[in-house]
């Protein structure tokens, strides 16, 4: 039995796993899950943060090139160090805009203005730290080569970018880093993985976006309530 990946490309962690698997030519069966239609992934893949565990597992099982998750002690420690900070400041924060602009309106509700403002502040602060403290003058987040951390961050960035936010104004290092990572991955793979999220606003405008069924509303409302 081969590898099955249950993914919805609207989700940042799902895109990260998809991109990693495709870039490394890891054979898998794509089991598309439509989160908007109330599709539920395997329990172990429900929580976005599990993508770290999945990426590490895939890198080890399929023996991908060392740079993704370096074997060297200190280099690997830097990846984990970044991922620790990422869990606190990036995860959860960069996905809120999709809720504000798309998901909440789709189920007839809205994210309170105060929460939207708070999220925006958190986003800007995280971007500043990412730009200055983590990236600095390095080509990639933890060193000279692309690691799992870079693709995790790229996909988080795509969420607000797809919703029209200019993340990189005044953040030259981050802008260059983004281009560098996309160049490394290749235009074709990026277009494929980013297609659905990049057209989400258009789908909203044309009303071609699927409406979540009533049974999907309670977990969505619970998720909305957890936005700080």
């Amino acid at each position: 039995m081969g590898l099955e990946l249950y993914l919805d490309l609207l989700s940042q962690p799902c895109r990260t796993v998809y991109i990693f698997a495709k870039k490394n030519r890891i054979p898998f069966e794509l089991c598309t899950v439509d989160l908007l239609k109330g599709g539920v992934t395997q329990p172990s893949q429900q929580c976005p943060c599990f993508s770290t565990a999945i990426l590490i597992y895939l890198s080890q099982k399929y023996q991908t090139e060392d740079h993704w998750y370096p074997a060297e002690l200190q280099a690997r420690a830097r990846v984990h160090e970044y991922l620790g900070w990422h869990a606190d400041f990036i995860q959860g924060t960069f996905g809120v805009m999709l809720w504000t602009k798309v998901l909440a309106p789709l189920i007839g509700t809205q994210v309170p203005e105060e929460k939207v403002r708070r999220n925006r502040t958190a986003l800007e602060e995280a971007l500043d730290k990412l730009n200055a403290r983590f990236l600095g003058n390095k080509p990639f987040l933890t060193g000279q080569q692309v690691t799992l951390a870079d693709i995790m961050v790229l996909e988080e960035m795509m969420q607000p970018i797809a919703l029209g936010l200019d993340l990189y104004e005044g953040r030259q290092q981050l802008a260059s880093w983004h281009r560098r990572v996309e160049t490394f991955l290749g235009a074709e793979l990026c277009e494929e993985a980013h297609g659905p999220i990049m057209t989400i606003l258009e789908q909203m405008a044309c009303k071609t976006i699927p409406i979540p069924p009533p049974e999907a509303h309670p977990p969505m409302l619970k998720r909305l309530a957890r936005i700080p």
Partner: protein
Amino acid sequence: MVLELYMDLLSAPCRAVYIFARKNGIPFEFQFVDLLKGHHHSKEYIEINPLRKLPSLRDGKFVLSESVAILLYLARKYKVPDHWYPQDLQACARVDEYLAWQHTTLRKSCLRALWHKVMLPSFLSEPVAPETLTATLAELERNLKLLQDKFLQDKAFLAGPHISVADLVAVTELMHPVSAGCQVFEGRPKLAAWRQRVEAAVGQDLFQEAHEFILQIKDISPADSSTKRALMPGVRAMLQ
């Protein structure tokens, strides 16, 4: 030059690193950074970790932050027994899975439970709205249920039959609400039994020693106003 660990045992991630290093006989110098006196905001400490968080590790010129990164670095460098962070792919993935989940869920709940129930009102003389405390305790309940039903299930330890860094990280977090007077293990026999097993595996003495300070937290004297002013912004950001 010996390894330095910058810690305060008030912090759950510090306790996990402390227990791990001590249990595995890893030689280190304990550099105490007093959180309640705001020493993490000192110039000296900011040079070690500009993000002002604990724990930090300094190994010669190599400085590392984030407790999970530190635990895994120590595990690999000092070649600790395999069960702490297994070589086996799937066993390791189970540990990674827990470590990834806990960051934004159980850890946050445990931190909020301690601060909303004890630290804000008693130490910082900052009242907490009843709805806030209720919401925090409800979220804690939810995460305790997930810990028990999704992660532990019927296993001896979180990632399998043996103790791993996942268990250390979890148990040290849970001692936050325990110390604040929350019912964590009462009414949850599976979790209670797991806690006994973790304590036995770590060693009662070491476990008690690491938790000596946090277990007395309800007796803490209120901070003076200048300490309160210095700490409040960081506390608010931490509890966000």
